[in-house]
């Protein structure tokens, strides 16, 4: 049984298919059809809804893709949809601004855009252009070309007045407190089952009892198996109710990221130490996906094109894997064995990721290459972390995504660099070595030759950025 607020209404659901997405729940069960399906794959944002979550004394509002959110993830939260914004005849400022700026044409993307804007307004008040872009990168609009939408986002808080969510804040807070997950719950339709454990111990036990069960964190990867590959997942274990697993802690020598912490939450901690990691997370999917998606999921799905693994490998990150009472740690690079094969044992799961602090690391840069700058999967991702002292490369960690069946270090390139003088000659040699490191494949994202060439060119970029910081090297710097 899960409990959540459908805006103001308490919903208690105990007989639902745990493979049901929030989008389908809204459209077919709750009969609220304002929220649209444009793709059911997390790419278009037409299905964007906002989840209100208790966070101490406040409510945190986050935009998510309802098409990739399984219903279990609603437990203990407030679900806000486009229908909830208008009060009587009065449009919400986000809606009114869209009307005033002519921000809707066919209107099919519009509910999702309004919800992204609503969340933006709740989180940052009057936003900067970059914040607007960040909030909207996951909302495709085929009609407008976006200019009027951006204008609406700029204007919506021109005359800010409290909205119904402000007015009802205390009440909502109290009601959310009441339904906070305190003990493990289950959801089942008789055929399929989902568990929401609330502690690591419960999770460990469940995973041992149900080795076949699939862990679901953000679901931004797993849900695609249901919505796109049309698979049925018999047993799900949702880890989002486990507070211990969602922590992000910064220590003197390390950053510990709970496997279930959202990428949005990891962003801050990582970007302080590694601005380029921040830039990478900025281009990781879209805000909706990052609000849901986790590092645990990004690693656990063992994709050859996941963005965080090469960066984390280059930084020398470690994983803590847990099984029952046992924990073990492992270099992240050793987690990946072959295409979709990992060192994770049945019954085992990722508890957290440990990243060394910047002071103990070298010059970190990460470069994502994709057809479209925002919300696209990397064709190539190159991450470099060299320690250079007195004109020599002391150590080199170079890792790539998109170049092999797994995220992988460029060992020959690293060898060519390590111990060598830090100069153009060395780079040329290292580039030749790098060309030997991988034999990537061709697919619709890029050809093998393009991947090879850009990988090598990225090393040039790294060298130029370190040696000649005055030279412009990134088109993404133009905003």
């Amino acid at each position: 049984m899960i409990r959540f607020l459908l805006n103001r209404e308490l919903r208690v659901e105990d007989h639902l298919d745990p493979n049901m997405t929030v989008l389908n729940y809204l459209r077919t069960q709750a009969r609220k059809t304002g929220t649209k399906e444009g793709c059911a794959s997390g790419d278009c944002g037409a299905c964007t809804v906002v989840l209100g979550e208790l966070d101490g004394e406040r409510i945190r509002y986050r935009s998510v893709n309802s098409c990739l959110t399984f219903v279990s993830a609603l437990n203990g939260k407030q679900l806000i949809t486009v229908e909830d914004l208008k009060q009587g005849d009065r449009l919400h400022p986000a809606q009114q601004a869209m009307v005033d700026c002519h921000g809707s044409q066919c209107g099919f993307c519009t509910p999702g855009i309004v919800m992204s804007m609503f969340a933006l307004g709740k989180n940052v008040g009057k936003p900067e252009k970059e914040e607007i872009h960040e909030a909207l990168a996951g909302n495709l609009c085929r009609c407008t070309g976006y200019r009027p939408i951006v204008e609406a986002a700029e204007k919506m808080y021109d005359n800010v007045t409290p909205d119904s969510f402000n007015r009802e804040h205390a009440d909502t807070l109290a009601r959310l407190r009441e339904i906070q997950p305190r003990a493990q719950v289950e959801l089942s339709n008789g055929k399929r089952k989902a568990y929401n454990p609330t502690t690591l111990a419960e999770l460990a036990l469940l995973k041992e009892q149900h080795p076949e069960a699939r862990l679901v964190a953000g679901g931004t990867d797993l849900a695609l198996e249901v919505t796109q590959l049309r698979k049925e997942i018999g047993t799900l274990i949702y880890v989002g109710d486990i507070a211990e697993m969602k922590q992000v802690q910064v220590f003197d020598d390390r950053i510990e990221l709970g496997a279930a912490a959202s990428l949005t939450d990891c962003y801050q901690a990582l970007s302080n130490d590694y601005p380029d990691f921040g830039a990478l997370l900025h281009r990781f999917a879209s805000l909706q996906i990052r609000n849901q998606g986790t590092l645990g999921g990004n690693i656990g799905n063992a994709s050859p094109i996941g963005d965080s693994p090469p960066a984390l490998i280059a930084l020398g990150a470690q994983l803590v894997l847990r099984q029952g009472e046992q924990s073990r740690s492992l270099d992240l690079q050793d987690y990946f064995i072959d295409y979709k094969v990992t060192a994770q044992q049945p019954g085992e799961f990722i508890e957290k990721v440990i990243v060394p602090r910047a002071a103990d690391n070298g010059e970190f840069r990460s470069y994502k290459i994709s057809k479209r700058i925002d919300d696209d999967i990397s064709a190539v991702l190159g991450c470099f972390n060299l320690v250079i002292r007195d004109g020599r490369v002391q150590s080199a960690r170079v890792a790539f995504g998109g170049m092999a069946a797994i995220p992988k270090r460029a060992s020959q390139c690293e060898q060519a660099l390590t111990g060598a003088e830090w100069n153009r000659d060395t780079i040329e040699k290292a580039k030749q070595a790098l060309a030997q490191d991988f034999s990537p494949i061709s697919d619709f994202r890029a050809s093998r030759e393009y991947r090879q060439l850009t990988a090598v060119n990225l090393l040039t970029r790294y060298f130029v950025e370190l040696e000649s910081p005055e030279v412009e090297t990134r088109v993404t710097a133009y905003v």
Partner: protein
Amino acid sequence: MSNHHQNKKSYAEMLELVKQDLTTGVGRSVKHESAAKQVSGEAVYVDDRLEFPNQLHVYARMSDKAHARITKLDVSPCYDFPGVAIAITAKDVPGQLDIGAVLPGDPLLADGLVEYYGQPVLAVAANDLDTARKAAMAAIVEYEELEPVLSVEQALEQEHFVSEPHTHKRGDSAAALAGAQHRITGQAHIGGQEHFYLETQISSVVPTEDGGMIVFTSSQNPTEVQKLVAEVLGVSFNKIQIDMRRMGGGFGGKETQAAGPACIAAVVAHHTRRPAKMRLPRMEDMMMTGKRHPFFNQYEVGFDDNGLITGCEMKLAGNCGYSPDLSNSIVDRAMFHSDNGYYLGDATITGYRCKTNLASNTAYRGFGGPQGLIMPEIILDDIARRLGKDPLEVRKLNLYGGEGRDTTHYYQKVEDNALPQMIDDLERSSDYQARRQAIREFNAKSPILKKGLALTPVKFGISFTATFLNQAGALIHIYTDGSIHLNHGGTEMGQGLNTKVAQVVAEEFQVDFDTIQITATNTDKVPNTSPTAASSGADLNGKAAQNAARTIKQRLVEFAARHFNVTEEDVTFRNNHVLIRDEVMPFAEFIQLAYFNQISLSSTGFYRTPKIYYDRDTARGRPFYYYAYGCACSEVVVDTLTGEYKILRADILHDVGASLNPAIDIGQVEGAFVQGAGWLTSEELVWNDKGRLMTSGPASYKIPAVTDMPIDFRVRLVENRKNAEDTVYHSKAVGEPPFMLGISVFCAIKDAIASVADYRVSPAIDAPATPERVLWAIRDMEQHQQQARTAAVAETV
């Protein structure tokens, strides 16, 4: 009849009001009629309609072969799934199987033969979509594979066509080329484009008591859906009613291709007598339905030392997919636009309609025009590089105008050419020359990032080239409270057509926009309509509605003259009032009076476009009523290490005649520009060697996102320039023309690439210019540069 106008105004107040202009009539930036409903989630799309308790959902199983004979087709396993109502194949279609739009060739369900990967082979209807899909996948389908034709070159070589080639010819191009001071030959693949309307194809069909159907559909072409549903069911057209309130985007993709789901659902509803809905999931939509035609274009051009084109030959080969669909007209339009705004000298333009084993490519904003129009831009870039001139200079030199240089290669005279003036204006307002200089300086100093700039024009012909389609109807009722009901044959897909047509009616009657209610486009109200396409929606339907309004107005004027014993000239409609010599009364009150005096308050209206014709045998005529013009200046920055790029700035000046609604027109221009830029940059369609579309979802097919919009985006409409033709309030069509402004981005990227070899070589790059293609073009430039250096060194030695 009660008078519910509580706040009666005094005579003086009314006199004051009639001195003022209507604030919501023609030329005002009235908000889109659905805006408030769209932002609140209240706007109802087909899938949002309340379902019936016995609702069926339909899923079509697609072929997983590009070309094959079906050797076995057994749907009996489908019935093992509880909830399945019916599984249909071609045999179950009671009437005509073929739903080809103009020419036959599109079986509703494959009939023994599949001709593309994704073709619907059978369909299953069940209580829910999931069950329907599972059951459809359980059917047994066996194939004997046949050799597919997957490339347009192969089709061209084998003369594998869906219909005959066609040629436009002026003068002796061969002689002109032979005698030219310079000649360049080249070729380019111009990519196709997925429509990616946010709302996928959908129709919901309800059987009626007369053996007919009511069809709620998302279609640009209700009349054709009506015709095809009737034909597949084998009933007369009058049994079928189409209701089309709004689409979640169309862009041409719902001109012919919306009919398939409607017809399949109708066959299901026919057999089961249950309401049936067919909505394509995104991947199925992308695999099953056609797209913008990819083209393979070859050219040879002759020009003089100044860069003036003297002769030109082009072969434009459209990749039509497996069936004709609208390809004839689409390739024609590519040919009609292969001059863009330039006089080509002696020219021979031939269009080929290549048949390949892909989904049948179809209408898409610009309708083949863009794929032809980009060619002279590529050619002029080539010429400029060859002569070491700025491409803008060469563009301006070749514009239509002057003695003997104002007739197209299909013999339409280019009248009222706005381009020379518009280009001058934009060149100045965008600061082209100074930025050109600044970019050269930047590029000289920046080893990795390079900037590029291009200013390109658009001249786009307005009218359906199938002349008979240039007609429209409308229906207006005025009710006794003065409120107006408006219906017309056009369809609303976001472009603001309903808003514009209502503004026209508001203007005619001089009543506020809110007085007018537009309802769903419905074949019961306005029959025999043309598709809302070719940018013609407001031109045609606006005029038809205007004619309907004028018919009623004329009756009202005659009545008032009679009734008040004044002349007709004494009767005027002004700002929600009617002025009858010294008498003034609110519009509603006047309408009541007319009603009591037995005046008909309802009328249809009709319009056909004058002046246009085209003779296919001589390949001459005036296919277009007029041309719409625009120009854009784009600046980009390109990364020479990866091929990535960004649009830094775009300045646009566009001609919409006297705008019916500036805000809506600017929205069209901006949206079209970004869509056009997407077509030529990140939107890459990739098929594998089995003919399967690999970019079959938004995860792999990348339309522009918010940060792909130009960082600095400045759009202006040309002011004080009415359409010289007698269009509705002298406005111009706006849907398609600005799409091709996106070509400026493509040319700007090429400009940045060309900088790598000091602008001496024209980069040969196919569209879309993905980062990968850009990087290869940069490599080419680097090699040229290398060779040039080696040559220079050799010379000095």
